[in-house]
């Protein structure tokens, strides 16, 4: 993970943080480039919030460094760092109006000292309120707002200030699905307009893929992979990342590598899928593996497949008459796309076809990405 020549606004260098028995962050390394929107993605409890709080200054790292604009800021209090943050529960000040909430960061001594007089407080507040479409709420009390409105006020308060980096902690988490989708598009529009550096935490992979210039996948305090959305999807560094990025989640099939060939483990005589092509820096040459194939790259057309046999457990048909079938194989449940208008029955035996060049190979133990399959090697019996 080498940083490019671009300026690094925020860096975490081997940052660790422990709360009692729980290691929230474990030697995390991260570099956020100026002007980018970096999404921190991971399940609940992975350490996303801790990471943001470390950058904001609400927590101090046990070891390692937090660097902002090249300066190590470990000891700096949150009020000194020029960051903005949204909280998962919005943290709106109940005794202030919406306008006062939004203007609050502008009225601190720090802000007033560094104010360059270019824009008045009032015009800034108005501008951000218009951007988030809450101008008519400015004089309301915070307890009169709906969930979506509160969320936008919280965003406004965060974005109104002159900050080096904006930290957004699951801002869309508590909104209903429709609103969330609408806000996501709006957010993307806003991000490009603001041209600000942002760290955005979410557990929703679609949000991550849509909003992030780069995505950092985190689990159990460790950062597994930092890459563009496309590479996260196409070249996940581990099974975990692969599982995270994609819905329905990736199928995991037992396989093995023998003699340079990738075979399915329980397909009768061990059907061969293709040749094994290892990734760079990978030393693995034979042994048990996990083959990862996304449901959209598995098909059933009513006839023979790649040798992955399963018993139909469920058939899901969508409104546009496309659908998937869920079959129980030797490796567990596998979901495949229906490539025919025929519909299998519950309990049928089917043979699923795998797109070999869209498959990924993972180490069975460590779940690291090992390589891909090169199709074209002889199929059938060895």
């Amino acid at each position, binding site marked *: 993970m080498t940083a490019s020549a671009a300026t690094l606004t925020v860096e975490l260098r081997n940052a660790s943080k422990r709360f009692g028995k729980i290691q929230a962050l474990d030697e995390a390394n991260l570099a956020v480039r100026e002007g980018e929107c970096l999404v921190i993605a991971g399940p609940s409890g992975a350490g996303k919030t801790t990471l943001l709080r470390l950058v904001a200054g609400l927590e101090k790292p046990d070891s390692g460094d937090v660097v902002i604009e090249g300066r190590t800021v470990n000891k700096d*209090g949150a*009020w000194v760092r*020029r*960051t903005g943050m949204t*909280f998962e529960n919005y*943290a709106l000040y109940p005794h202030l109006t919406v306008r006062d909430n939004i203007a609050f960061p502008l009225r601190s001594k*720090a802000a007033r000292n560094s104010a360059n007089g270019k824009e008045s407080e009032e015009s800034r507040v108005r501008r951000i309120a218009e951007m988030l479409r809450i101008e008519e709420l400015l004089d309301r009390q915070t307890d009169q707002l709906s969930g979506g409105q509160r969320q936008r006020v919280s965003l406004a308060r965060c974005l109104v*200030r002159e900050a080096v980096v904006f930290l957004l902690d699951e801002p869309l988490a508590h909104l209903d699905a429709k609103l969330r989708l609408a806000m996501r598009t709006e957010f993307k529009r806003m991000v490009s307009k603001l041209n600000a550096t942002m760290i955005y935490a979410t557990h929703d992979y679609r949000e991550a893929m849509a909003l992030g210039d780069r995505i950092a996948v985190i689990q159990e305090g460790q950062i597994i992979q930092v890459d563009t959305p496309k590479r996260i999807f196409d070249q996940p560094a581990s099974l975990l990342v692969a599982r995270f990025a994609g819905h329905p989640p990736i199928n995991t099939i037992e396989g093995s590598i023998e003699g340079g060939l990738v075979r399915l483990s329980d397909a009768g005589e061990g059907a061969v899928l293709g040749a094994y092509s290892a990734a760079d820096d990978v030393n693995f040459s034979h042994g048990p593996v996990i083959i990862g194939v996304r449901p959209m790259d598995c098909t059933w057309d009513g006839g023979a497949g790649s040798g992955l046999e399963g018993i139909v457990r469920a058939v899901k048909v969508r409104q546009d008459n496309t659908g998937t079938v869920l079959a129980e194989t030797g490796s567990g449940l596998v979901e495949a796309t229906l490539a025919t208008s025929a519909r299998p029955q519950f309990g049928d035996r089917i043979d699923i076809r795998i797109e070999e060049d869209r498959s990924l190979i993972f180490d069975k133990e460590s779940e690291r990405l090992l390589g891909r399959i090169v199709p074209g090697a002889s199929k059938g019996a060895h």
Partner: protein
Amino acid sequence: MTTSSLEENVGPATSETRSTVAIGDFSQEKAKWTVGRMLAHLVLVIFAFVILFPFYWMLVTSVRPQTAISTAGAVLWPEEITFFNYEQVIAAHLYPAIMNSFVAGIVSTILAVALGTLAAYGLERYRFRGREDVAFFILSQRMMPPIAIAIPILLIIRSIGLADSLLALILLYTVFNLPLAMWIMRSFVRSVPVELEEAALVDGYRPFTVFMKITVPLLRVGVAVTAIFIFIFAWNEFLFALIITTHGGAGTLPLALATLAGSPWGIEWGPMMALSLIAILPVLLLYATVVLFLSRGVNLGGVRG
């Protein structure tokens, strides 16, 4: 916190009237008036009567002319109603005793609430070794028998020239009420979400400014409750007023009351009860305020003694 509003008839079923509906959705009209239920209410009526009777007696005695009290003895209802006792007592004691009580009460309340809130905040929001020990240390001051420090306090105060001064009294009252203020404010501070303070920190405000601008405005209720309790305790205080001050100097109302009782001609109950009622009046008024405030939905479960 459980929200057991006193509006509903909640409470474990210790009733023998099992014909009632399940716990929680009880309706009073449906219950039968068994002997048990009637007896229970009788006991409660007696209880209420016992509580209120002394107040009644005090009131009656205070509006009877003193001559009637001395000659006719005790009656259940005054022969004639006069406010002369009150006039007499107020004229004699409004200044300085009653004023002293007010000033000492208000100033020490302000100080105790301010210091107590600061202490409560320090204890709640910061973690440090021995935190609970410090809290207990402060609380334990309340347990100390005042007599234990009464003597040295008197000597010290005399030697620094503060004898018979309101200032000394104020300082003492502040110290004695600090633990209570801290105890009550602690749970109120706890109810202010930490996120609000964290948001303010990130917004560029230093910790103490956050305390002043965010936490304190949200503690209005706690401050009011605490202030009322502390004022009542300061207003009622007697021992130190007795020891440190003199009647006519910095003496407070309770001291005036005691002085009145110690008059060589025996106790004149009319004026005595009038002054007693005046002594009780602010307390009753504050209490009424608290009750009215509580009846607006704040439940009693959150105000444990």
